[in-house]
């Protein structure tokens, strides 16, 4: 059992079995974080570099904690204190970092495809922690783990993703992940925030667009709210936050006809009172905090699967059960 890749660049390049392997592995890793001694020696002596060209609290901390719970050494580099501010190119930065022999570089960058570029130039593993508006694979995997803890089967689930789809790498990774496992995905939000042709990202399950928010969430099994990414917008795509909230904010009022077993997800950080009201964010359907817990388990699983097997196949099949 293994991932047949050295990198995790996006969900788009995973097949459904690989997605399931990561989720199943992550399920088992949850237990480690519940122990008093939250550390296993598995990746002792490996080095993970978190290279973040965009601000992040949750994702960076989550990768760092995951690496440390696996006994790997984690080093964080954020651009403000690095040589990038002295004019070094990304490729030079990466080459220099690799000269210090890390086993994995976790990278977040505002330009789509940056992890791919690094992957071509580096021998170590590369994990995409968000590249521009393209993908954020570990987020989609933790969302999937959170859903699968509550739903037996992803296939056939009605999942509605709401908000600024155009700027959202979380939405793209989730569309790939959910449809690969057979879910039906509905996208909703103001027309200015939904790129034409987005339906084509779906494979396996169907992707549809429904601008009417009430119709879009009617009968949904999962509602995934996205953060309004004000920092990524040039010209505003809607008049005011208040208008957005009135039209596309998730409130308890709108959830009156919801299914009893509805799940509400949000990748965080949440804008309370904008895309989601506080009572819904903290309410019974909300799994927002579970998502954060699951994020650590998913990232531990990724490190295990990417760094915990040799690249050559010399010792293939050396894991039979009786050997003990």
């Amino acid at each position, binding site marked *: *059992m*293994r*991932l047949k890749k050295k990198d995790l660049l996006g969900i788009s390049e995973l097949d459904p079995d690989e997605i399931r392997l990561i989720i*199943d*592995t992550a399920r*088992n*890793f949850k*237990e*480690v974080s519940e*122990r*008093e*001694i939250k*550390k*296993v*020696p*598995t*990746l002792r002596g490996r080095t993970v570099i978190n290279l973040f060209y965009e601000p992040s609290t949750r994702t960076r901390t989550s990768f760092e904690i995951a690496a440390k719970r696996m006994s790997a050494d984690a080093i964080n580099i954020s651009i403000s204190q690095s040589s990038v501010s002295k004019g070094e190119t990304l490729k030079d930065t990466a080459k220099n970092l690799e000269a210090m022999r890390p086993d994995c570089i976790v990278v977040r960058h505002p330009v789509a495809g940056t992890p791919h570029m690094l992957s071509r130039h580096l021998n170590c593993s590369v994990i995409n922690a968000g590249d521009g508006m393209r993908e954020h694979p570990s987020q989609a995997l933790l969302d999937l783990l959170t859903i699968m803890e509550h739903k037996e089967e992803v296939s056939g689930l009605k999942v509605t993703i709401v908000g600024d789809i155009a700027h959202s790498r979380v939405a793209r990774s989730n569309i790939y992940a959910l449809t690969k496992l057979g879910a039906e995905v509905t996208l909703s939000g103001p027309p200015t925030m939904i790129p034409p042709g987005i339906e084509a990202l779906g494979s396996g399950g169907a992707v549809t667009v429904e601008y009417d928010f009430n119709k879009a969430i009617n009968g949904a099994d999962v509602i995934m709210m996205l953060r309004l990414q004000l920092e990524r917008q040039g010209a505003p795509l809607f008049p005011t936050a208040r208008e957005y909230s009135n039209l596309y904010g998730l409130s308890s009022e709108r959830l009156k006809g919801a299914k009893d077993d509805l799940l509400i997800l949000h990748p965080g950080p949440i804008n309370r009172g904008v895309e989601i009201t506080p009572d819904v964010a903290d309410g019974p359907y909300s799994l927002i905090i579970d998502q954060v817990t699951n994020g650590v388990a998913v990232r531990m699983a990724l490190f*295990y*699967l990417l*760094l*915990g*097997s*040799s690249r*050559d*196949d*010399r*010792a*293939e*099949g*050396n*894991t039979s*059960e*009786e*050997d*003990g």
Partner: protein
Amino acid sequence: MIVLDERAIARALTRIAHEILEKNTGSRDLVLLGIPTRGNALAQRLGAKIASIEGEEVLTGSVDATLYRDDIGLTGDNPPLKEMDIQFSIDGKIVVLVDDVLFTGRTIRAAMNALMDFGRPAAIQLAVLIDRGHRELPIRPDYVGKNLPTAPNEGVRVRLEEMDGVTSVILIDKTSEKK
């Protein structure tokens, strides 16, 4: 070739249950931890036998040694994680590790390291259904169902009702099994 049938396995486990109780003068502070997957089933069976002899339930659980293996990163595969289930403190307990086949001893080493992360047992003992020899570490079982000297090309397959539908131990020739 069948080495142990259902009744022989039951008899061996009954004997081991008595040996555990004799050595530890009863079931007080006793904890049985199986090594997945078949060690779990054996730990449950031993637990039931000890309970019926002593009239008191014994704590049982599962200790997965995967994350403590010494060959992580050396094999082409990622060994799949299994069940880790220790819902009680093992501080001061007598922990009996239970596995189906004892071979190199490496899994037991890994399991003992895992236990150390959960607490400080008063003692760790080892019960196995089959000891097939070929130890690579200085590890010795305290309770053995059957000593079964094997050649390196032979394999031992333990099948238990709980997961395999049948209960037996068979000796196979690995060279002829590989296609």
